């Protein structure tokens, strides 16, 4: 096993463990912290795939901004283990079985799928660098970029309107 494979399996273990902890933990604050760990692991995956720009954006936007917003809301509402609503155990079991069947069907369908190439290139290619992404973003994708700024403005106005009621 070379260093790339070791890092891949380590990051995979952290991502899956964090994701399971998000679903299973009783205290919402622990869920948020586990989700932050998952996002860090996914950023590590992006760096392994040589997509540095997305790795940094993932850290800043998701782990930095969005999860802090979640944490603030949870602390504002003072949610903890006692106030946590619980489904009854049969519904939980049914949900888990349904999700497991979903995973089983998708894995069985995609296990033998034909793809153009069987390997994802790790650590090579300049696609994920900010120079190339910026050129493509401001040439071919400039209209979606501007529209997304309008989306942000409307989301901001919407959040303020909803919050002021």
């Amino acid at each position, binding site marked *: 096993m070379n260093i790339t494979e070791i890092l891949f399996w380590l990051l995979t273990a952290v991502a899956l463990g964090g994701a399971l902890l*998000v679903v299973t933990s009783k205290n919402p604050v622990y869920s948020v912290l586990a989700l932050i760990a998952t996002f860090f692991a996914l950023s590590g995956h992006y760096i392994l795939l040589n997509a540095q*720009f*997305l790795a940094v*954006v993932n850290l800043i936007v998701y782990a930095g901004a969005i999860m802090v917003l979640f944490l603030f809301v949870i602390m504002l509402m003072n949610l903890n283990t006692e106030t946590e*609503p619980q489904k009854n155990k049969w*519904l939980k079991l049914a949900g888990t079985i349904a999700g497991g069947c979903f995973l089983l069907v998708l894995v069985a369908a995609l296990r033998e799928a034909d793809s153009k190439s069987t390997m994802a290139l790790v650590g*090579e290619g300049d696609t994920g660098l900010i120079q190339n992404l910026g050129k493509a973003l401001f040439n071919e994708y400039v209209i979606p970029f501007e529209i997304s700024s309008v989306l942000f403005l409307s989301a901001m106005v919407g959040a303020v309107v909803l919050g002021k009621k």
Partner: protein
Amino acid sequence: MPINLYIFLALALFSIGVIGVLTRRNAIIIFMCIELMLNAVNLLLVAFSKMHLADSMAAGAAPTLTNGIDAQLFVFFIMVVAAAEVTVGLAIIVMMYRNIHSVDVNFLNRLKN
């Protein structure tokens, strides 16, 4: 790394998100599971972008070419939309908490009252 491993990792993360949505009653946790599903899709898009690049490099193209850049820009736009979604969603959850003093989604099973 083989592309299959990335596919299975993304599927596992997505399924954990689905299980979370189905088994939890806290609106904020359900929202976080939706974020988890979005991130699984992002990881798969980045892996496929690199697969596309590997394919064109195997065909003998120059190593600095920018095949697969669309997928990474899609990921960027997914992150933008997710950020906008989170602001509005959390505002709605805060408003719901002010009205019924709980984040339990079972209290919202009817539209009136």
